[in-house]
């Protein structure tokens, strides 16, 4: 056994159950620093739950999660989160810049209002996602892809080391998808670890270097070339997937 460097994310024996049926069963996952990992699996496989369990948003029945060798509570500042776009009310009375600045609330702490510095960070993040022209736009007037980019910008201002993203490609057009992928790959080049819940099996090999196949249990995880095999996919999707390997 080799003594490995610190893992960015280390999930051990994680089991989560909402009612009697387990949503995640005895899941292990090791994510090394600096990889771009996608979690794929059928509907109801527990992908979102896994992300939420890593973030401490759902309480596991058993198991353990470490971020760089420490529990999440101790490493919050290192983690950025992009929730599913549909989980918030986009008719909330606020604008784009304000939402992005929410990413600084954790670092700001109690009682302090966001100021000039937060505004500048938010502007930089909006430029990175190509939304700098929309700062004062009311959020209900954004398209799906624009909403997604606002959420990405909010995660960027968290200035995290590990990013967890729940379906950032859902309902976005091809151009936005490419822009997001480029952004994710830039994050990886900077040594960040990015974990993405993903649905489109066709693009896994193009976009990501690591993959985790999940269906309540972990089927496999590792570098795409070794892990993203027809056998593993059949196990994950129960043989219902007609997948053509390139």
């Amino acid at each position, binding site marked *: 056994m080799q003594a490995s460097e610190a893992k960015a994310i280390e999930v051990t024996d994680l089991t989560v159950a909402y009612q009697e049926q387990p949503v995640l069963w005895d899941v292990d996952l090791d994510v090394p620093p600096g990889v771009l990992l996608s979690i794929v699996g059928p509907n109801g496989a527990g992908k979102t739950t896994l992300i*939420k369990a890593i*973030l*401490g*948003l759902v309480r596991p029945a058993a198991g353990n999660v470490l971020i760089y060798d420490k529990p999440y*509570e101790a490493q*919050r500042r290192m*983690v950025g*989160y992009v*929730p599913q776009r549909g*989980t*918030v*009310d986009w008719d*909330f*009375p*606020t*604008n784009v810049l304000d*939402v992005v600045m*929410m990413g600084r*609330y*954790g670092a*700001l702490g*109690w*009682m302090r*209002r*966001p100021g000039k510095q937060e505004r500048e960070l938010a502007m930089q993040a909006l430029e990175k996602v190509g939304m700098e022209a929309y700062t004062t736009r*009311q959020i*209900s007037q954004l398209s799906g892809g624009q909403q997604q980019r606002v959420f990405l910008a*909010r995660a960027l201002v968290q200035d995290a080391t590990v990013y967890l993203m729940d379906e950032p490609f859902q309902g976005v057009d091809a151009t936005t998808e490419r822009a997001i992928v480029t952004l994710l790959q830039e994050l990886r080049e900077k040594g960040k670890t990015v974990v993405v819940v993903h649905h489109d099996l066709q693009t896994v090999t193009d976009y990501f270097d690591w993959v985790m196949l999940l269906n309540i249990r972990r089927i496999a995880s590792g570098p795409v070339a070794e892990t993203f095999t027809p056998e593993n996919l059949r196990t994950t999707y129960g043989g219902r997937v007609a997948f053509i390997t390139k």
Partner: protein
Amino acid sequence: MIVAIGAALLGAVSGTLGTYAVLRRQSLLGDAISHAALPGIAIAFLLTGSKTPLILVLGAAVAGWLGTLFILSIVRLTRIKYDSALGIILSTFFGFGLVLHTLIQRTGNANQAGLDTFLFGQAATILESDVLTIGILGGIAIVIMLVFWKELKLLVFDEGFAASLGLPIRALDILLTSLLVIAIVLGLQAVGAVLMSAMLVAPAVAARQWTDKLSVMMLLAAGFGALAGVGGTIISSSASRIPTGPTIVLCATVVVGFSIVLAPNRGLLWNRLRYQRNKRNLKMLGGQLFQSEEQ
């Protein structure tokens, strides 16, 4: 004059805190809290024999808070849905309150006259001491809300993200609900348990029509609430024996109706005009295209 000041303060406080209730889609929680507060008033009176507003308000707050706690626990621990839990607690507490009030009336306690104003509200009974209670408690509630402004805003907009940042969302949720309870019990005497929720919902709904900014929405809601409070009080006190609660609520309804129809951007009239204009423009465009094809 005292009465009008009291009603204005009340409208402002409930409008401000009602903004969050509306944005969280908890409009009906306010209704449940105000109904659930009724037995608290009766019990506070039975225990102390006093009609001091602070004591009755305290009783109302405890009962309203207990009711809310029951609703949230039912939703969390059983598979009963939110609206059913709301219905169960609202009617149970309210029924219990009515029983207690009838009992108090039967005892023939000369002191009891006035307790039933908590049902439909009677702003005329507002004294200087009540205005002081409303001003101080309402002021405290609003200051607390301002202190935790960004945390509460994030909680209401995106609870999951707030939790991931390490904000204690359970505690913030309890805090926000408690502030709502304060706003409600302060209004019981003037507006009454039956209609109090309208004082939370109506000003906020009207305010949302006019602005896309949370702070402006809250200020507007406070203003609309105060306006409805003063308007309702004046109308109800000019004619004898009109209960104030319904009058205030009707005033608030007028503001809501006006806002829904006339507000720019979100207003119905505005929508209609925009639709017509777009249709006309598209028709002209369509005609040109058609002509150019013919040529």
